[in-house]
């Protein structure tokens, strides 16, 4: 018998029951909850007289709806306000720990799980949010679920699961200077397409992955769903262990060393076989920008807007034409000549301290171009406090950026941070779908450094172009 993949190890360790003819019943170690996908699940519990089986394996925060104004400013939208109140009521009634708006531990659910040390190697982690794949960077099996499954996990701490197929995506070589984890994952999605990872759990491996920080690894795993994969994984190494040391949810002293010894086993065996393998030359990559309305519609920042004539099929040509019309772009236009109205630095993809440092390094001593609105939204209060301790807030403010309170913000149109119809945005978020950032808004996904340079230039730009 051959070796096992990391996915196989994680799956096998969590099998509760294997009823014949049915999916395996899998144990869930950690359930992260937010206000949007949970109210109907708590209603279901009440309707059936059920309790939350393991409040000590459940953690809630408010992120999607929260305005990014100071916490003292009330939530103006009554529907959003009600959803946030309902989360507080449900967590109180069912005994779930909640970090509400303004709490020192509050933030985007996929930022706070790792930073608080509650997301750990070897765990199964779910959340009613497709970007739960983020936590796979820690060597945990983490995937997004719908509200029915949220209710299921609240009630049983398990989920019926079919074993997924495995895919190894190997990133060979080191990223060139100026090329980030975001560029890497955009290139992966460009290669796999929006459905290439469907039915699979992706394990990212290779020199470029091993050289990434934990925060960069989270950026890569975060967007696995954009290639159709429910989960992304990265094997545990010393970078993982050192990231976890000293975090609030992690033990200290000898118990930490015992945990670390166990965590080091969460790697694929050398002779493990994957159902699919993809190899990408990471050293050859350059910064990426999306031009269309799905995250696989990617070009190099050095490139031009593609033409429908280059499409491989009728359906593909229709899709390109539709995307170009929505985005208001003309084939053949260099990306560097495309101007923007808004720059958004934030979201569960790119709102961690390193992301803010990368952007601040570009904007330091420079000014946002006239007519451009630029926002920085730290992923959590902890990120915000750490950034302020380094003076990053002052760097951004001096350049003309808004420095806002933590939340999902302009990643999706659920709070006051939205594009107006026709506005074009360079965004460090994860989805460029029609209307994602506000009705009629036009989203281009980029890295924090490219977003920062674009804010300065007023058009898509690399950091070197705006260097003082």
């Amino acid at each position, binding site marked *: 018998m051959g070796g096992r993949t990391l996915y196989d190890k994680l799956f096998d360790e969590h099998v*509760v*029951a294997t*009823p014949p*003819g*049915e999916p395996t*019943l899998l*144990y869930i*170690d*950690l359930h992260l909850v937010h206000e949007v*996908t949970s*109210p*109907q699940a708590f*209603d279901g519990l009440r309707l*059936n007289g059920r309790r939350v089986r*393991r*409040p*000590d*394996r459940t*953690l809630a925060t408010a992120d999607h*709806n929260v305005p990014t104004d100071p916490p003292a400013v009330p939530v103006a939208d009554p*529907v*959003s306000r*009600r*959803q946030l109140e*309902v989360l507080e009521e449900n967590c109180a009634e069912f005994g779930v*720990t909640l970090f509400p708006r303004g709490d020192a531990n509050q933030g985007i659910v996929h930022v706070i799980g790792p930073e608080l*040390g*509650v997301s750990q190697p070897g765990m199964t982690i779910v959340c*009613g*949010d*497709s970007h739960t794949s983020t936590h796979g960077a820690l060597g945990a099996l983490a995937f*997004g*679920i*719908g*509200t*029915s*499954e949220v209710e*299921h996990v609240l*009630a*049983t701490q*398990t989920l*019926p699961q079919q074993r997924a197929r495995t895919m190894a995506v190997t990133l060979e070589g080191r990223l060139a200077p100026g090329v980030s984890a975001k560029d890497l994952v955009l290139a992966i999605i460009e290669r796999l397409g*929006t*459905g290439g990872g*469907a039915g699979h759990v992706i394990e990212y491996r290779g020199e470029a992955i091993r050289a990434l920080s934990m925060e960069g690894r989270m950026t890569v795993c975060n967007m696995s769903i954009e290639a*159709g994969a*429910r989960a992304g994984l990265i094997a545990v190494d010393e970078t993982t262990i050192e990231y976890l040391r000293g975090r*609030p*949810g992690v033990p200290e002293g000898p118990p930490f060393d015992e945990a670390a010894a166990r965590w080091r086993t969460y790697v694929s065996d050398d002779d493990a076989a994957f159902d699919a393998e993809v190899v990408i030359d990471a050293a050859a990559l350059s910064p990426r920008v999306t031009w269309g309305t*799905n995250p696989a519609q990617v070009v190099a920042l050095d490139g031009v807007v593609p033409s429908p004539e280059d499409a491989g099929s009728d*359906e593909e040509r*229709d899709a390109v034409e*539709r995307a170009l019309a929505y985005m208001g772009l003309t084939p053949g236009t260099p990306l560097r000549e495309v101007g923007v109205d808004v720059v958004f630095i934030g979201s569960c993809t790119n709102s961690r301290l390193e992301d803010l440092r990368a952007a601040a390094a570009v904007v330091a001593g420079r000014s946002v171009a006239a007519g451009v609105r630029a926002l920085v939204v730290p992923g959590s209060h902890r990120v915000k406090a750490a950034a302020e301790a380094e003076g990053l807030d002052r760097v951004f403010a001096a350049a003309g950026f808004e420095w806002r309170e933590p939340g999902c913000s302009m990643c999706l*149109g*659920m709070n006051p941070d939205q594009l107006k119809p026709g506005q074009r945005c360079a965004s460090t978020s994860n*989805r460029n*779908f*029609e*209307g994602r950032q506000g*009705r009629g808004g036009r989203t281009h996904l980029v890295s924090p450094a490219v977003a920062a340079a674009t804010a300065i230039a007023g058009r898509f730009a690399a950091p070197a172009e705006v260097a003082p």
Partner: protein
Amino acid sequence: MRPVRVVEGRAVPLGRNDVDTDQIIPSEWLKRVERTGFGRGLFSEWRDDPDFVLNRPEYAGATILIGAERFGTGSSREHAVWALLDYGFAAVVASSFGDIFANNAAKQGLVIVRLEPAALAELVALVTADPARHVTVDVERLVVEVPDAGWHHAFALEPMTRERLLQGWDDIGLSLRHEAEITAFESRHGGETPVARLAAR
């Protein structure tokens, strides 16, 4: 969940690859805490276009939606399934689906039918030529039929998904049959959890 044996009625061809769940139900609608009433939000941005297929009177009252490749990608929002059901759809036919969407659909009794692209194109041609055509999705026999054209095509469902649809089973109830096994697992998988450690600080 109510049992589903057969879905029948008109079928509306949406076309378009990569229909993401943000299009099926825009985020604005996700602020609601109710489970019903999402039909009004279904494809709400596209429905502003009078020529959009759902606005065409000949497809009014359709119960089957025909997509293309990768229907339901993106966000995990189960609201997309609630919106389709609330609008009146009981089955979606496409050549492939987003994994989380398909999973959510199974939980709610929205029938997911995967047809290979050639068969899908035949079905689209039939209902485009005559929108009033009666289409049947039979979960028991695992076949899609257009009886007046003599057209039919088999499809596959996971045996458990099919059984749950036919019986209308509640997944939580099914899992709680394994209560003893869950408790046994927890007793050997114990210790202080990170959430408890955090809450104690």
